[in-house]
C-alpha cells in the first residue's frame, strides 16, 4: 500500500458554506505529515471526513486502502485519533477513559500505557470535569499513543500543553515514527511541525495551496542577506526578485527570492565582500506568506 491517506478533489459543504473545495492530500505510509492552514481553512472538516464522521459531497477519499465512510468501523481498528477539543465524561476517570477507548479500538499496549501516563505526568484517578484543558488532552494523547495502530490522526493535539509536555509529546511522536507509523499532524505550533514533519500540506479556504518537504517550501521563499562590501553596491537594484533593498554606504541589506540568489551573490562578489550574513526564511515567515498572500491571490 503506497498511501495511508489519499484524497483528491474533496468537496464538502454545510448548507451554503463551502468548507472543502477540491482538497487534495497524499500521505505515504510511514510519513509524518504536517497539515497546516489558518483557522477555518477546513483542517478539522478534512479530519472528520477521514474518520467517517462526515460524508464527502464529492471527490475520492481513501484511508488505509479503504473507504472511510463505508468501512469506518473496521478501518478504525488501525487508527487512533486525538481531537483538538477533548471533552470527557464527567463521571469517568481519566484512566477509565484511556482503557475504554483502547478496548473499543481493539486493545492497548499495557507497557506503553503505563510508560506514557508516567511521562505525561497524568493523574488517571481524576474525573472528567476536574481535569484542565491540557490534562484532558493528555488523556486523549495517551489513549491514542498507547494503542497499536498504523495511523495516528492528530488534530491540534498540543494546543493546551505546557512546553515541558510539548517536548514529551514530540519525543513520543519520534518514537512512533521509528515504529514506522504514519502520522497526520494538524498543528499551529510551527516549531513542532519543523521538528516532527517530513512533509507538510498547507490548505486555505478548503483547498490545498502547497505540499512538499519543508526544504522545498523554503525554496519558494526569500532569503535575507546583510553584507558589508568593499565599495558601494551597483546593479543590485536592477535585478529582478530583490525586495526591501536598503543601502547605507558600503552596507547593504535585502531579501532575495531563492531562484535569484546566485545572481545576487555574483553582484556582491564583483564589488568585494567583507562580511556576509545570510538568513533562511523562518517558518513563521513562510506560513505568514502562505496564509496571507494566497488569500489575496485567490
Amino acid at each position: 500500500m503506497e498511501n495511508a491517506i489519499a484524497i483528491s478533489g474533496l468537496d464538502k459543504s454545510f448548507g451554503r458554506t463551502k468548507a472543502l473545495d477540491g482538497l487534495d492530500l497524499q500521505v505515504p505510509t510511514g510519513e509524518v505529515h504536517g497539515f497546516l492552514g489558518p483557522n477555518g481553512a477546513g483542517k478539522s472538516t478534512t479530519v472528520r471526513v477521514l474518520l467517517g464522521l462526515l460524508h464527502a459531497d464529492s471527490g475520492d477519499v481513501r484511508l488505509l486502502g479503504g473507504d472511510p465512510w463505508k468501512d469506518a468501523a473496521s478501518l478504525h481498528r488501525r487508527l487512533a485519533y486525538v481531537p483538538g477539543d477533548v471533552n470527557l465524561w464527567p463521571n469517568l476517570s481519566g484512566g477509565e477513559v484511556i482503557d475504554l477507548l483502547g478496548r473499543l479500538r481493539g486493545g492497548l499496549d499495557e507497557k506503553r500505557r503505563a510508560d506514557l501516563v508516567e511521562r505525561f505526568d497524568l493523574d488517571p484517578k481524576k474525573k472528567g470535569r476536574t481535569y484542565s484543558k491540557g490534562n484532558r488532552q493528555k488523556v486523549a494523547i495517551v489513549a491514542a499513543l498507547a494503542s497499536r495502530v498504523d495511523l495516528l490522526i492528530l488534530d491540534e493535539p498540543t494546543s493546551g500543553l505546557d512546553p515541558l509536555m510539548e517536548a514529551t509529546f514530540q519525543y513520543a511522536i519520534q518514537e512512533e515514527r521509528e515504529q514506522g507509523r504514519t502520522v497526520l499532524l494538524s498543528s499551529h505550533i510551527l516549531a513542532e511541525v519543523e521538528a516532527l514533519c517530513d512533509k507538510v500540506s498547507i490548505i486555505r479556504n478548503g483547498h490545498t495551496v502547497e505540499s512538499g518537504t519543508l526544504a522545498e517550501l523554503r525554496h519558494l521563499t526569500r532569503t535575507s542577506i546583510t553584507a558589508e562590501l568593499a565599495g558601494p553596491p551597483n546593479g543590485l537594484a536592477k535585478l529582478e526578485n530583490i525586495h526591501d533593498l536598503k543601502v547605507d554606504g558600503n552596507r547593504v541589506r535585502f531579501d532575495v527570492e531563492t531562484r535569484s540568489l546566485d545572481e545576487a551573490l555574483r553582484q556582491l562578489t564583483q564589488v568585494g565582500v567583507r562580511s556576509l550574513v545570510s538568513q533562511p526564511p523562518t517558518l513563521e515567515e513562510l506560513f505568514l506568506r502562505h496564509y496571507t498572500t494566497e488569500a489575496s491571490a485567490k
Partner: protein
Amino acid sequence: MTATLERPAEVAPAHELAGTWHLARLALRRDRVILPIWIVLLSIVPASTVKTFTQFYPTDADRLGLQAGANANPSYALLYGPPFDLTTAGGFIAWRLCGFTALLIGLMVVFTVTRHTRAEEDSGRAELLASAVVGRYAALTAGVLVAGGASVLIGLIQVGSMIGAGLPAAGSLAFGASIALAGLVFTAVGAVAVQLAEYSRTANGIGTAVVGAAFLLRGAGDSTVDARWLSWLSPIGWVQQIRAFAVERWWVLLLPVALTLVIGAVAYWLLPRRDVGVGILPPRPGPARAAPGLRSPLALAWRLHRGPLLGWTIGTAVVGAVFGSIASGIGGLVGSSPQAQQIMERLGGAHSLTQAFLATMAGMFAMVASLYGIQAVLRMRGEETAIRLEPVLATSVGKLRWAAGHLVFGFFGTALLLLSGGLFLGLANGLRTHDVGGSVGDTLSGMLVQLPATWVVIALAVTIFGLLPAYSAAAWGVGGLALVLSLLGPIVNLPQGALDVSPFQHPPKIPGHDFVATPLIWLLVVTIVALGAGLLGWRRRDVG
C-alpha cells in the same frame, strides 16, 4: 506611588449584582422561542375552558351531577384535586387545571433557572462572563428574575383572560396569584438545586423530583380519607386549597410567599459557599484503571444511564407503594349522599373503583416513564453536541452499535420503571386486601399494556434525533403533546380524532377492562417504523 494607589478608586465599584440586567437580557434573548411557548400554553388554557364547561354542563342539574360524580370517584381527586364547587365554570376550571398548571409551571421554572445558571457553568461560558464586570450573585439573580418574571406574567395573563371570559374577579385573581406563587416557590427550589448539584443534569433532576413529589403528595392527600394533611405539605396542594371560585381562602397565599422567601434565602446563602463550576458536594476521585467490563458501547451507556435509571426506579417504586397503599380505601372517600352511592354502584361498586384507580395510575406512570425514555434517547444528542461522541466513533464502534447502547436504556429502562411501579403498586394494595398475587398480577399487566404507548413516544424521539438532529429538543414537545392531549384534551372538549393522536389513549385500561391486542400491535408497528426511520437517518447523516 500615590497615583497608583488611587487608581482603583476611579473604577466604578462593582457590587455583588453587577451585570444582572445584562445577563437577564441575554437569558431572554436565548429563551425567545421556548419561554413564549410556555407562557402562552400555560396562561390561555384556563380562560378557553369556560366555553367547554357551559357547553357540556348547561343546567344546574348537569352541574350537580358532575359534582356528585367527582365526589364519587377518588381517581379524579388523585388526578385533579378536591372538587370544591363544580357548579360554576370558575370552580370547574380551578378543579381541573390548578394542579396540572402548577406542575407544568414548576417544570418550566426549574429548567429555566438551571439553563441560565448551572448549565452555563458546565459549558464554561459562565467563566467567560464571570471575568467581565459581573457580580457574584448576578447569574443566579438573572435566572431567578427570568423564571420568576415568566411565572408572574403567566399569572397576570390568566387573571386578565379569565375576567375577560366573564369569570368572577376574586376567583380569577386567586387562581392567577396562586399559580404565579407556585412558580415562585419552584423558582426558589431550582435556585437551591443548582447550588447543590455537581452538574446541570443533576440540578434538573433534583428540581423536577421536588416538583413531581409535590404533585404526588397532594394526589395522595386528596384521594385518601386518613391522610388529607399530606396535601398541605405540597405547594401544589396550596394552589388548590386557596379554593378559587369556591369562597376563596386568601390567607393560603401566605404559605407560598413564606416558603419562597425561605428557600430563596437558602439558595443565596449557599451560593458564596461553593466555587464556580462545582457543587456543594465535592467530586471524589475515580479508579486509575477501568473495570474489566468497561469495554463496549453498552457498558459506557450503562455508566452514563445508571444514575438516572436508579433514581427513577426508586422513585416509581416509592410512588407505586404510596398509591398502592391508598387504593383499597378509595371507596371510603365516596360521599354518603344517596346520589353518590348510586353513581358508585353504577360504576361497579367499591372494588371497581379501586380497579379504575389502579388503571388510572398505570396510565399516569406510563406518561411519566415516557419522559424518562425521551431523556435517555436525547442523551445521544447530548453526547454528540458535547463532542464526546467523536472519540468513540473514531474507534472501531459503528454508529448503530453506539446508538443501540443508549436505546437499550431508552426502551427497556422505561419497561423497568413500569415494572417497578407496577410491582410496588400491586404489592402495597395486595397487602391491604390480602391478595398479593392477584393484585400484583393486575397492576403488572396494567403497566405492561402501557409499554407500547411509551415506546411510540420514545421511538419518535429517535426519529427526530436521526432525521432532524438540530431540533432534538422537539422530542420533548412530542412527549408533552401526548401528555397534554391525554390529560387536558377531554377537558377542553377536543374531538376524539385529536385525542387519538396521543398513544396513551389506546392501551386497554387494566385492571377493570378486558385485554385487547389490536391497539397494542398498532402501537408496536408505529414504534418499529419510527425507530427504523430514525436509525436509518442517523446512519446516513453527518455527525456533529
